[in-house]
């Protein structure tokens, strides 16, 4: 029996599959990269060749440019691909549109590099698929037991109640442009909200891409085309615009921010928002523990986040757990 370290190594660029000759989500340009999803701390430009799901390829080309890699190879989900002695297979990760876990099989050993993931159903992307494996490589963005995300419909309910209670004000929600924005749009529509939803210009291109991939979000209007005021309406913007001069055009906005961090009051206060919404695209603590247990993996590597508590807890569960402390991963939820 070989050790996992014999074929999955940590280089300066990140996780490297030696027999396949490719990196996964490398933090600097490499010859060959397999990419889990399109957030900028995972998908960077300048690689020789990129393999990813067709949606992730579209996201990368839209954000980084058509020529941001020497060659893009779209690889459908659940379609095994032999590469040297390694078999690669992509499975949905439930994080954002196109996000995938990467299953690698080599000499009878199976490793799953999960990227970022969540188990909560999300109308804008495929549901996480559990893949039994020997080694599970996990994130730990919310790797503390205090992080238990509220049901998303409940948070949307709080938002809509606030819109009703303050009809003379705009509700301005800060959210990341890839994933969170579109999930909020879909959740609002599911909750029966049928007024136009207003978008900051920076959120348009990724939303258009989701629509091109088959999503529908009802009537969307750009704030720049709607004029000033927008009392009683819901406006989505990137987090950086919440306190920007841009927001002055709106009617005494109730500022909201949608993120898993909003569970902790100190973090919510740091953001200075009036309505913190606990909506996250990452696994919370119970999901992390449950997922790792269900994969049956005896060995677990933790890539980024609050790994100390998770490694400790996995030790209590009798797993071999190790923190990789990968460079270049954002502490925040996938920031634009």
């Amino acid at each position, binding site marked *: 029996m070989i050790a996992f370290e014999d074929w999955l190594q940590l280089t300066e660029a990140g996780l490297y599959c030696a027999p396949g000759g490719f990196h996964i989500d490398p933090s600097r340009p490499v010859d060959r990269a397999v990419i889990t999803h399109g957030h900028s701390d995972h998908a960077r430009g300048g690689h020789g060749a990129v393999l990813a799901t067709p949606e992730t390829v579209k996201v990368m080309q839209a954000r980084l440019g058509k020529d941001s890699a020497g060659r893009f190879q779209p690889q459908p989900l659940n379609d095994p691909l032999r590469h040297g002695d390694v078999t690669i297979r992509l499975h949905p990760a439930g994080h954002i549109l196109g996000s995938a876990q990467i299953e690698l099989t080599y000499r009878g050993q199976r490793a799953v590099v999960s990227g970022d993931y969540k188990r909560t159903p999300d109308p804008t992307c495929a549901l996480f698929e559990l893949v039994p494996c020997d080694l599970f490589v996990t994130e730990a963005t919310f790797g503390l037991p205090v992080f238990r995300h509220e049901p998303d419909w409940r948070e949307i309910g709080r938002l809509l109640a606030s819109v009703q209670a303050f009809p003379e004000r705009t509700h301005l929600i800060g959210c990341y442009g890839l994933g969170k924005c579109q999930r909020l749009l879909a959740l609002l529509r599911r909750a029966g909200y049928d007024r136009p939803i207003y978008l900051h210009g920076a959120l348009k291109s990724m939303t258009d891409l989701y629509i091109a991939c088959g999503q529908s979000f009802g009537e969307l209007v750009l704030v720049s085309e709607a004029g000033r005021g927008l009392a009683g309406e819901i406006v989505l913007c990137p987090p950086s615009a919440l306190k920007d001069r841009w*927001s002055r055009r709106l009617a005494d906005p109730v500022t909201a921010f949608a993120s898993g961090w909003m569970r902790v009051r100190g973090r919510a206060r740091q953001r200075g*928002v009036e309505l913190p919404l606990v909506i996250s695209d990452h696994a919370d603590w119970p999901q992390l523990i449950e997922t790792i247990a269900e994969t049956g993996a005896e060995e677990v590597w933790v890539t980024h986040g609050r790994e100390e508590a998770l490694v*400790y*807890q996995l030790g209590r569960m009798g797993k071999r757990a190790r923190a990789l402390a990968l460079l270049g991963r954002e502490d925040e939820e996938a920031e634009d």
Partner: protein
Amino acid sequence: MKAFAALLDRLVYSPGRNTKLQLMQEYFRTTPDPDRGWALAALTDGLPFSFPVRRTIVELMDKRLDAELFRLSRDYVGDTAETVALLWPDTEAQGDPPRLSEVVSRLGLIDAQELGDVIASWLDRLDATGRWALLKLLTGALRVGVSARLAKTAVAGMAGHSVDDVEEVWHALSPPYQPLFDWLEGHAERPDIAGAPVFRPLMLAHALEDSELADLDIGEFSVEWKWDGIRVQIVAGRGEVRLYSRTGDEIGASFPELISMFRFDAVIDGELLVLRDGKVAPFNDLQQRLNRKSVTRAMLERYPAHVRLYDALLIDGEDLRPLPFIERRRRLERWHAEVRPPRTDVSELIAVADKEELHRIWRETRGAGIEGLMLKRRASPYLAGRPRGHWYKWKRAPITLDCVLMYAQRGSGRRSSYYSDYTFGAWKELPDGSLELVPVGKAYSGYTDAELIVLDRWIRNNTVERFGPVRAVRPALVLEVAFDAVQRSTRHRSGVAMRFPRIHRIRWDKPAEEAERLDTLVGLIEG
């Protein structure tokens, strides 16, 4: 408990006064008795208990979660109660959340041994926000950025009453305030307060604008000195004495030498001062006496308290408030001469022949160390609140000095996208002859909306360093600052602090090197 928790959760994150009022009104309108009454108590005078629950909840948590995971979580969250609220297992299925009234009445009778079990059973029935609110409630202090007066304003607004209508009856009521809600909702008469030693809402003065002064007929006004202490209301009768601050807080405990001496039946309005050898001491001296739970003999001797009386609301059960000021004043003088309460005197009326003389007296206030003048319309009844056209305060002219903008901080609420709070400094000469800028004050008013926009832009373009919401700027912009006085301060590096500073003018034309020296400010320290 659920609605109350949701209310507290919104309040802590809402900076705007109107937003807070709306949130509270919605809660009081939709929540049944007696829950809303207990909520009102928690938001105003507090609940009749306070439990040091930190140890208890840590022990409860220990049975439910590994100690190391708790430690890591606590380190991250920073607050023990919040950590427990977040970590507590979700077992909402174990029954409906407890009602606020259920929690309050159970806690009123609880003995220490059962406290842990009772808290645990409640935590089991609440969600994360509910658990957080419960633990906050147990400690007795909510700290959600709502003053007692704001909460009262909210209930008053339910029925279109003013906060003063509520203040008038407030001190005769106790939680859960059923008679108050019955009255506000039109189910009952206004609660009866006759004879109770309760706070009566004050009549307040407007700042006198220059334009208003021109139109005043000075013959219709009485003039008094504006004393630099704090406004108090003495309420005495039936062997009880209360000393209330302007906001209706009872502060008698800090002034036993007054409380023990007052034996009369009256409600009197006056200024609390420290008086030494007949001379009013600086405000700083009075501050030494405020907010103290226990008072030492040394404090009593060093900072002797005194009340300078200027109005009478009730005397011997008779309500004088409908009478004209001049008549109330006459009754006050007569009463004072008869009763002679120790440590009091009656504020002097200044004889003023005409406006010219009034101006002259006003100009001399600074030199005399007096804060300014009060103008009271002789014919005015005693009206609660701040009615227009009756009482004016005319503060002495401010001092203005040119200072240099050093730091700017983002405002809150409506101003959260603007750098609207300014820290400014003066030049300090160092032993080697070079100059260093040291902060002397902070102001967030005095400029117009148009000036704010220009200042905001200048600050963004001249930032040299950022610390969270604060920006340090190039020392290049001179602000003419108006302020009332300079005090010694141990909290500021410069050793001085300005009283009531505001931005008077932006001196775009003035080079920063020509701004004021620290020595000038030190020379202005009073007392």
